[in-house]
C-alpha cells in the first residue's frame, strides 16, 4: 500500500450564524468527514453547493481550523509540526480556485504573477536554474504556450480558459505534493471544460501529485479514469464512496441517484420522461433533520431514517454507503 500524502480524520467544522441579538447558533458545515489521498492519486469530492465540500478542502490546506479532527501530511499532524516541517507542508499544499475572474490580481502580468511566487520561494536557488526558465517551463506545461505570447499579458487580455490555466500554473510552479482543485471548470464554457480537466489530469501524472478534485459535475471525473475514487457529500457528511465507475453506473445512495438524474442529457426526447427524485431543495444546515441528513427529502425514507443517523459502512471492497436501506 502506498503512502497517504494527506489524511483527514473525523473532521468537524462548526460555523456560527447570528440568531437574533447576541445569540449565535452553531451548525456543523462539515460533520465527521474522513478521507485519505494516496501519493499520485486523485479523489473526487462531489456534492451540491452548501454541502461542505469547499470547507473540507480548505481544512486540508490549513486555511480553516476544524473544531475537531486531525489532518496528517505524510503521516504527521499539521497542527503539531515544527516551523520547518510546517513550511515544507505549506509549499507542498496548493490550491486551484473556482473563479478565474475573481482570484487573479488584475494588475499583475502573467509573467509577474508567476515570478512573484518563484522569487518568494527562491526557486532558482532550490533548483539551481534561471528563474525565468522555471516560469517558462510551467507555462508550457499548463498550455500557456508559447510563453512569449502570454508572459506580458494582463489578465483581462486572457480568456476564461487561459485564466484558469494561469491559476493552475500558480498552484503547480512550487511542485506541490498535494493540490485542491475547487470546481476549476464551473465558470468555463462546456466546450473548454474538457481541455482544462485533461490539463489537470496530465499534471497529476507528470508531477506525481495527489489531487482533491471538488466538483458538482460528476461526469467530468470520468476523465480521470474509471477507477478514480469518489466521495459524495451531502450536508456536511459523506454519504457514499466508490470508484467513478461504481458511482456513475451503479449508484446506491438515494442522494447519489438524484445527483445523477439531474445531469442534463443532450436528447430532446428525454425531457418528457425525466423526474426530480428528491423533494424540495437542500435545507439550511441549521435545520438539519435528525436521523439521516437526507430523510426529509428522500422518497424511500422509513421510520428509522428519521430517528438514527446511518453510519458509513463498507458494502463491497472500496465501496462505502451511509444508508439504512443498505445495512
Amino acid at each position: 500500500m502506498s503512502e497517504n500524502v494527506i489524511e483527514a480524520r473525523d473532521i468537524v467544522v462548526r460555523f456560527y450564524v447570528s440568531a437574533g441579538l447576541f445569540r449565535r447558533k452553531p451548525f456543523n458545515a462539515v460533520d465527521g468527514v474522513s478521507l485519505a489521498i494516496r501519493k499520485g492519486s486523485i479523489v473526487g469530492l462531489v456534492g451540491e453547493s452548501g454541502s461542505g465540500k469547499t470547507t473540507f478542502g480548505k481544512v486540508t490546506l490549513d486555511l480553516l481550523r476544524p473544531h475537531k479532527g486531525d489532518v496528517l501530511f505524510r503521516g504527521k499532524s499539521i497542527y503539531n509540526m515544527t516551523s520547518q516541517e510546517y513550511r515544507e507542508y505549506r509549499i507542498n499544499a496548493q490550491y486551484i480556485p473556482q473563479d478565474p475572474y475573481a482570484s487573479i490580481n488584475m494588475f499583475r502580468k502573467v509573467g509577474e504573477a508567476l515570478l512573484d511566487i518563484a522569487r518568494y520561494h527562491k526557486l532558482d536557488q532550490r533548483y539551481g536554474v534561471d528563474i525565468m526558465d522555471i516560469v517558462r517551463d510551467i507555462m508550457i506545461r499548463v498550455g500557456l504556450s508559447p510563453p512569449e505570447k502570454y508572459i506580458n499579458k494582463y489578465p483581462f487580455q486572457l480568456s476564461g480558459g487561459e485564466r484558469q490555466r494561469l491559476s493552475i500554473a500558480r498552484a503547480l510552479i512550487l511542485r506541490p505534493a498535494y493540490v485542491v482543485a475547487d470546481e476549476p471548470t464551473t465558470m468555463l464554457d462546456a466546450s473548454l471544460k474538457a481541455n482544462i480537466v485533461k490539463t489537470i489530469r496530465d499534471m497529476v501524472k507528470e508531477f506525481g501529485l495527489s489531487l482533491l478534485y471538488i466538483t458538482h459535475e460528476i461526469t467530468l471525473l470520468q476523465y480521470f479514469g474509471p477507477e478514480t475514487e469518489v466521495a459524495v457529500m451531502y450536508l456536511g457528511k459523506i454519504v457514499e464512496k466508490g470508484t467513478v465507475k461504481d458511482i456513475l453506473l451503479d449508484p446506491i445512495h438515494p442522494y447519489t441517484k438524484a445527483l445523477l438524474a439531474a445531469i442534463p442529457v443532450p436528447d430532446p426526447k428525454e425531457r418528457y420522461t425525466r423526474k426530480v427524485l428528491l423533494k424540495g431543495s437542500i435545507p439550511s444546515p441549521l435545520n438539519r433533520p435528525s436521523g439521516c441528513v437526507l430523510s426529509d427529502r428522500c422518497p424511500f425514507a422509513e421510520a428509522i431514517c428519521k430517528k438514527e443517523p446511518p453510519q458509513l459502512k463498507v458494502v463491497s471492497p472500496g465501496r462505502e454507503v451511509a444508508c439504512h436501506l443498505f445495512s
Partner: protein
Amino acid sequence: MREPLLKVRNLDVYYYNIRVLHRVGFEIRRGEVYALVGESGCGKTTTANAILRILPEIARIGNESSILYYKDGRDPVDLLKLPEDEFSRDIRWKEISMVFQGALNALNPTIKIKAHFLETAKAHGIRDKKEVYKRAYELLSAVKLEADRVLESYPIELSGGMKQRVLIALALFLNPKFVILDEPTTALDVLTQREILFLLKELKEKFDLTYMLITHDIALVADIADRVGIMYAGRIVEESSVEKIFYDPKHPYTIALLRSVPQIGDFKRLPEGIPGEPADFRKLPPGCPFHPRCPEATEICRQKVPPLIDLGDRKIACHLYAKEKVS
C-alpha cells in the same frame, strides 16, 4: 404555425469600430422557447441587450437593422426606432423583460429583497407600496419561495438557487409576455439547475410566456427549447428545430458543441473538447470565423465567409452545405 412575436433582422452591432454582431436575424413565435447557443463572447448577450435596448453607450447599431415586435398581434413596432421614453414606458419590463446572467451577483447586496421590488416599481411609476408588496408576495410564492422571509432578507442570506428565483420573480413583476433568460442556470449546481428549469417551464404555462434562452450549455437546451440558433463569432451559423439540431446537426461547430458533453459511463469516448480558444473579435481570421478550429476546413473556408442559406429544414452558414445546394 404560431404567429410571430419578435423578428430580428440584419442586426449589426459595433463596439467602437469592432463589429460584434454580423447580420443576426431570427424569428421568435408566440409561446415558444427559442434558444441562442454559443461560447462566451460570441454575441448572445449583446443580441439580448440590443432587444432590450440596454447596450453600453459605446455600442452602435447598424442602419439596416430592425427588431420588430408584434404587440398583441397588431402591426409590429420597430423597437430600434421607438423613442426611449416610449420604449421604457410601454415595452421594457412591461412587454419584454430579462433574467440577467450571474444570479450570484445580479442583486444589490446592500438592500433587502423587498427594496428590489420597490425600486423596480418606482422605475415604472408605481408608488403604492402596499400594491407592490402584494404583487411581490404573489410572485415569490409563484417561484416557490417563502415570500415573507425572503422579502425581509438581504441577498447574502439567500442561496444561489434562491437568488435566481428572486431574479425570475423580479423579471415577471410587470407581467411581461416575453422573457429573455441569460444563462439562468450557469454557476448553479446540477440539482438546483434542474429545479430552476422545472420552475421556468411551469411559469411559462402559468403566465403564458415566450422565452429566449441564452446559454452555452447545449445539454440544457435539449430539455426546454423548441427552436435553436447556434451562434459563433457574432453570427448565426445554424438554426433549426431542437430535434434537427440534436439528431441531425450539420454545421461542424454544432457537431463539436454536441460532442463536448460527456456521456455517463462512457469512458472510452470521452469528449475532446473543441480545440483552440473561442474567436476573438479583435482579430477574426479571414473567411469563415470557425475555420481555425474546424476539422473539415478547406481552402474556400479560409478565404470566403459562408452566407447563411436556407436548406428547407434549417438555415446554415457553412461552405460544405453551400456547395451541395449549387450542384
